[in-house]
């Protein structure tokens, strides 16, 4: 982050998704392979990494890549649903 948002380190840090071992096995995906994530807003292709996560939960660092999947509805509060929204996952 301190090296600037154009730096390779920042881009690599925010262009990834963590997934449970179980889900990776179910989808037949290996660590480092790209997967397709999509919501009603947009779709992105990012490399997947093993994370200590419950089944059916993904984790992405906040940043310009994850934010392509986030909707603009704030329920009248100003805050979009950055967490806890549904994402479809596919092998590209």
């Amino acid at each position, binding site marked *: 982050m301190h090296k*600037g*948002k154009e730096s390779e380190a920042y881009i690599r840090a925010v262009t990834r998704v963590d997934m449970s071992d179980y889900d990776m096995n179910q989808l037949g995906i290996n660590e480092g392979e790209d997967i397709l994530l999509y919501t009603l807003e947009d779709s992105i292709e990012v490399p997947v990494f093993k994370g200590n996560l419950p089944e059916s939960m993904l984790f992405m660092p906040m940043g310009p890549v994850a934010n392509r999947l986030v909707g603009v509805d704030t329920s009248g509060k100003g805050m979009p649903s950055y967490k806890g929204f549904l994402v479809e996952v596919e092998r590209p």
Partner: protein
Amino acid sequence: MSTLIENAVCTFCGCLCDDITVEVDNNRIVKTKRACANGRGLFMEYDATPRKPLIYGKEVSWEEAIAECAGILENADNPLIYGLSSTSTEAQKKAVELADRLGAVIDTTSSVCHGPTALAMQTVGEATCTLGEVSHRADLLVFWGCNPAVSHMRHFSRYSLMPKGKLVPNGRKDRRMYVVDVRPTASSKVADHFIQIKPGSDYEVLTVLRALAQGKKVDVDQVGGVAIEQLQQLVDHMKGCRFGAAFMGMGLTMTRGRDINVRELFSLVSELNQFTRFSVVPMRGHSNVAGADQVMTWQTGYPFAVSFARGYPQYGPGEFTAVDLLARGEVDAALIVASDPAAHFPRGAAAYLEQIPTIVIDPEKNMTAKAARVFLPTACCGIDAPGTYYRMDNISIHARPVVTSGRPGDEDVLTGIMEAMKLC
């Protein structure tokens, strides 16, 4: 010959650690002591070399850039001033003054951070305390929906878990720590108890905790994937402690329910004071986002989402919050101060900034600055500019500069824009 500057303030996160030693050689920072990885990065990676402002990516003089900003804001019917969380309270005050004079909308990064916390606070109040009280008194810590081991790296060692305090002389041994989250984290690894709840079930779990704290019977075996016995144990520890402190983060504010999740936690904390001493402290992320709430409230009566379009401050979360305004295309110019909405807003809102004249005031050329019409590279408070900041527990701390750069501060630039518009 190098100089050691003691007790420098790190202006990276809401911890505002003010015990940093910075070694400066020939006006360059060469070493830091006691800073965490984030703080070290802030001090060591910052390049204080004065830079020229940019208009459409081309270098111009400061006079030209200020005149361009004045022109953009003068010609706008409904400008937005946004950000303010990583600048000084002095600059924040100037930004509110500018919004007032322009009849603009002003919103801070609180709206995509602890805005829901402010809404909850306005509904049920906030039983809170300082981090000093936590370090000296707290024998029970509950971290809900936050991961300070990663986001606020010295929180445990400096304020909450580890310090040997007056009433907790053995430090960690005298404290019990809970983490409540939807996934295991670096923070849950060091906790005594980890309660893993199902995503989106914070409200239900907190409601049951409130019922159990009042001695009511609950006719279910589990809630949010957690056995009632486990929640009863947490309640017993909460009621049995001498001084409890809850810390809450984006796990509550960014998920379904938003402010009503926080309202349940704040209500639980208030009600626990029937049995013992209990407080809650929101884990504020950016260094002076708490200050932004303070300044906005002093100056306008409201913590964020304020429009001056009618000549007086109107409060409107959902109406005057930046994401909503940009997503609906309701502003025709934007002045972004010390924040990076292009990186942090949903794409559907951030993209609109590229369609309107946007001004960015920031020490770094961030993603928003890259697409802005005008970029004004200013000094960084705590490194090459002074300024007052508010820690996450709303304690004000003055940050002194550790090097000199000749870069103007955010307050200077905002004053310059107002002078160019003949608003001063």
